[in-house]
């Protein structure tokens, strides 16, 4: 946040000044009313941008929440004669509760199912607005909604309302920017990047999706209430599917993950649709109709095809190019910021054990587990639609050891990992971690318990920096929630500073001190693997699951990896390793478990495994064995 503010502080300030002066320039009431409407749309669009751009979840039914805000405010202040301010507050609370209630089942869905479910929600609510005539007035709507009154002054002119709406919009933008640049925002972006990886680091993904959905619904509701007390009349049409799409277009134009972009989109689309509404009838001749949907449709298609990043990032780039032409030398945003955060000072590689000394504030450290077995896999089976991937596999992992799981391709190694880490529950059998059964826990709970994994095909959050990736690893050891984040409370700020330092240290410890501010997705594969391991270590694992960490690495990188894993073990972390590279396995592992066709065929020290006839048969085929002696049964 601090660095974003430092590099952009002129923008928001200038924007506020322009906003404050605008009514002095705009004399026409029509134009003033458009400025008011833009403010309302901006509030709703910023909310949708949080949901879509940051958390990566879609809503094609946001008009429903906008409508709920408007109707609840309208009904409260007409039928029950409640003060409009209270109505706005109550509407936001009720809409938020409703969003939380429907969000719970809806966000179990993904992709087009999620899109369609939210769309269906929007249409159901729209139908209810039309049909619940006794309460909503049906198609003819609600009239006689009162104005807001502030210190005895009714907000009944466009200029007064303009200041109210934009004060709300700025507040919403302020809160949203804070949320985005916080632990919560990082968790949301992690969900967007890879939901499974976020969960594997202890991010409670369903909860975060729900929270941000609720926040965006509350924003929409506020915008709706502002609408109701401005027009003093509500009827269903403004809350139809078309408005959900209009919001979508605004956010898309704004480039999804840009708060200011959503504002820009809201302005552009509102002005565009107003001017189309004014000009198209002149050209086409028909008076009625909603021709602006052609433009919406074409803009939507065009942006997605030609500019999937949206228009706002392009505006930003053009703007900074102009600025840079003025000032020849200025180090670009993030690297300067990273220096400011003090990461570079940690240039020397620190031993991994220093990741969190108990006395440090902010970041919690797990107590050491007792000696003995820490993971007990008992009779675990997993079938996929009738196909058996694992069949009654049992083994234990002892505290402090490195246990390797090997086996030919398709032996079930990754399935075993997924089952242990909670990515897919076992069909039968039990798994105990530090004596507690975990086979039915979801992956974020298992991660929070101290069992942390990496992925066979590296799953970094590609659009976040290496440092931010590691900071997501610290997620479940830090506490700042959405309220702390939104209000920038001091506790959140100090925790954030602490996290940054910790993450920087962890990156140093894997030898990537100077890579912290680079976008993780752009790093070479070897470094991505190291970042992933640093990220997993950040979660303070008791047991670290490494899924083929050596795959795709050069010889030198493998040597580095070997050292790293040994070093990890010396800090007391137990390691469970799946690996194909026999040199790496034989050099590192204390014990080895061999899987073949989903069954455990051998277990023992590297020496015994090396000479086990069944293992040789599994790897090299039966004929590799000397025919008479080696038949085990």
């Amino acid at each position: 946040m601090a660095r974003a503010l430092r590099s952009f502080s002129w923008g928001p300030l200038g924007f506020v000044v322009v906003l404050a002066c605008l009514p002095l320039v705009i004399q026409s009431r029509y134009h003033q009313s458009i400025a008011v409407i833009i403010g309302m749309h901006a509030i709703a669009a910023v909310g949708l941008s949080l949901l879509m751009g940051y958390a990566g979840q879609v809503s094609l039914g946001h008009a429903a929440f906008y409508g709920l805000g408007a109707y609840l405010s309208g009904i409260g202040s007409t039928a029950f004669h409640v003060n409009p301010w209270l109505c706005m507050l109550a509407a936001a609370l009720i809409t938020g509760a409703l969003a939380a209630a429907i969000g719970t089942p809806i966000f179990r869905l993904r992709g087009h199912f999620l899109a369609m479910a939210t769309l269906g929600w929007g249409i159901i609510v729209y139908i209810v607005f039309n049909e619940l005539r006794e309460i909503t007035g049906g198609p003819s709507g609600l009239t006689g909604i009162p104005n807001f009154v502030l210190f005895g002054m009714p907000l009944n002119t466009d200029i007064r309302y303009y200041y109210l709406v934009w004060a709300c919009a700025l507040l919403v933008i302020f809160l949203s920017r804070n949320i985005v640049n916080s632990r919560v925002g990082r968790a949301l972006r992690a969900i967007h990047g890879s939901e499974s990886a976020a969960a594997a680091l202890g991010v409670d993904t369903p909860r975060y999706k729900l929270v941000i959905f609720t926040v965006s619904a509350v924003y929409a509701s506020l915008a709706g209430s502002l609408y109701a007390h401005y027009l003093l009349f509500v009827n269903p049409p403004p809350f139809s599917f078309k408005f959900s799409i209009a919001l979508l277009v605004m956010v898309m134009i704004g480039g999804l993950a840009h708060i200011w972009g959503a504002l820009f989109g809201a302005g552009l689309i509102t002005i565009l649709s107003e001017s189309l509404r004014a000009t198209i009838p002149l050209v086409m001749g028909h008076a009625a109709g909603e021709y602006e949907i052609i433009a919406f449709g074409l803009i939507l298609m065009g942006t997605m095809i030609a500019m999937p990043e949206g228009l706002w990032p392009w505006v930003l780039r053009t703007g900074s190019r102009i600025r840079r032409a003025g000032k020849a030398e200025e180090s670009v945003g993030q690297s300067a910021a990273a220096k400011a955060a003090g990461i570079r000072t940690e240039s020397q590689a620190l031993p991994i054990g220093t990741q969190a000394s108990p006395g440090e504030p902010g970041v919690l450290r797990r107590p050491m587990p007792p000696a003995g077995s820490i993971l007990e896999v008992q009779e675990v089976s997993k079938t996929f639609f009738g196909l058996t991937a694992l069949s009654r596999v049992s083994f234990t992992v002892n505290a402090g050891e490195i246990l390797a799981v090997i086996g030919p391709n398709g032996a079930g190694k990754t399935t075993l990992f997924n089952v242990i880490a909670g990515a897919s529950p076992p069909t039968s059998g039990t798994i105990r971690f530090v004596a507690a059964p975990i086979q039915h826990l979801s992956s974020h709970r298992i991660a929070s318990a101290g069992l942390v994994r990496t992925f066979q095909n590296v799953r970094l959050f590609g659009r976040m920096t290496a440092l931010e990736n590691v900071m997501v690893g610290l997620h479940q050891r830090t506490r700042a929630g959405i309220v702390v984040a939104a209000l920038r409370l001091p506790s959140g700020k100090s925790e954030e500073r602490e996290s940054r330092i910790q993450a920087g240290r962890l990156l140093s410890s894997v030898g990537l001190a100077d890579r912290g501010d680079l976008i993780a997705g752009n790093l070479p594969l070897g470094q991505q693997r190291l970042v992933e391991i640093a990220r997993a270590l950040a979660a303070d694992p008791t047991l670290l699951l490494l899924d083929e960490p050596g795959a795709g690495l050069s010889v030198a990188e493998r040597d580095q990896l070997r050292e790293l894993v040994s070093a990890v073990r010396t800090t007391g972390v137990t390691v469970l390793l799946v690996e194909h590279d026999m040199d790496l396995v034989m050099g590192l592992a204390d014990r080895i478990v061999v899987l073949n066709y989903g069954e455990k065929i051998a277990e023992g020290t590297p020496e015994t495994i090396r000479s086990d006839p069944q293992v040789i048969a599994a790897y090299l085929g039966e004929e590799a064995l000397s025919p008479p002696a080696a038949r085990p049964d």
Partner: protein
Amino acid sequence: MIFASQLLQFLLTGITNGSIYALIALGFVVIHSVTSVVNFAQGEFAMLGALLAISLIAAGLPQGVAVAAAVIAVGAFAALLYRVGLRPARDASPLAMIIITIGAALAIRGVALVLWGTEPYAMQPFSSGSPLQVGGAVVRLQSVWVLGFTLMLQPLLHLFFTRTMLGRSLRACAVNRLAARLVGIQTERMALMAFGLSGAVGALGGVIITPIIFATYDMGLMLSLKGFVAAVMGGLVNYPAAVAGGFLLGILESLGAGLISSGYKDAIAFVALFVILISKPRWIVRSEQGIEEGG
């Protein structure tokens, strides 16, 4: 007795309305299984088919010729839509694809508004004659046509997909696009075909239902949504199940409208959608596994 015949009437009306959902659902399934795109413009194909046929009849073509021409033209248009709208973005996320098709749907609707205006259009039934009486319920002749077309399309599609090289290639793409390409199937052409086919099927649905419900420029949205619901009921990958889903949805709606309230008729489909999606049958779980990033 009166209640029983009323119930039968609802059932028959439901089956007629369900036919068009079934045809739209078929279109969803064809496109989704070959290209993994959920094509939101599916209902617009029905709208275009209906309005185009009406205009061609007004221009003097015989009804049969007009209907055939409209179906072919919309099929070609759908293929064009894929070529200019979706293919350039074929590496985008599934969500981006949906948004593109939503954009296309809006643009098509807007153009239809310009061309045909807001008024509803009627079409002569395919055959004249008095309605049939079935056990106290009334069945319009056009309903028989609708049901006939929908049911006849089943064996035809089945033959197409199992007996022709093109049909088999389409199925190969549905099972595994990469493998299909490796054995020399031109997957791009197949995607084009899939859009063409579902455009034509959608248009046919729009045309045959118009003598019963009137055609308007904005009929596509609801048809898209309900067709999708029907396709989801049937699993989104299975043709006969999608058709069954269409009939089921039609019947549910007609019973709901008759027995509860006609105002909430449109809500029934979405409540059904919610119930299905939230109960998360196994195939949704399976189909979602492809959605998670995968790398």
